């Protein structure tokens, strides 16, 4: 999954059926500290995320279809969570003191 920040909404009335009646959110990809890590994705919202919120994206088709409860369809990127907090520490087996960054 990926961390991202909601920066807008894509409004569309002509689209593949799987997107009917769904909100499309414009999401900047961010690193664990919340800084843009380059790139963005348009994701189908499933949790009611709002602008400026840090969110969790799934970017894989079969998971996306499973979550939406559809058997087929050109969907792979969903907002599946609203992040409250990201606590990141060092890697290499020596966890440093966790640094809390607000979501």
């Amino acid at each position, binding site marked *: 999954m990926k961390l991202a920040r909601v*920066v807008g909404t894509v409004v*569309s009335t002509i689209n593949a059926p799987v997107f009917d009646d769904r909100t499309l959110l*414009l999401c900047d990809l961010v690193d664990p500290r919340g800084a843009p890590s380059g790139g*963005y994705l*348009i994701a189908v919202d499933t949790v009611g995320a709002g602008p400026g919120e840090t969110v969790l994206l799934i970017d894989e088709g079969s998971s996306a279809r499973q979550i939406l409860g559809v058997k*087929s*369809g050109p969907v*792979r990127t969903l907002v599946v969570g609203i992040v409250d907090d990201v606590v990141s520490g060092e890697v290499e087996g020596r966890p440093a003191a966790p640094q809390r960054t607000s979501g």
Partner: protein
Amino acid sequence: MQLARVVGTVVATVKTPGLEGIRLLVIQPLDRHGRPSGGSVVAADALHTAGPDELVYFVAAREAAEAMPDPFVPVDHAIVGIVDAVATDADGAAGGPA
């Protein structure tokens, strides 16, 4: 999915059987501010409605074929929606279909 602008059409009479009857458009992927980003690609127009210079969004990889009537065709990019507007909060909209 990402934003793109329709910049052309591809006509190909000799092609892999799975591609018959599929409208092929040249699209220029855009960054979220609406600026060209990376090279152009040829995408299948799943909606048969995208016109020249239209702002669309597309999906890549396996899901592109899922946009086709027959989901087992050699398609790796597909236009899956026409953008009416992109409403952003901070720094201005990417622009609707101009």
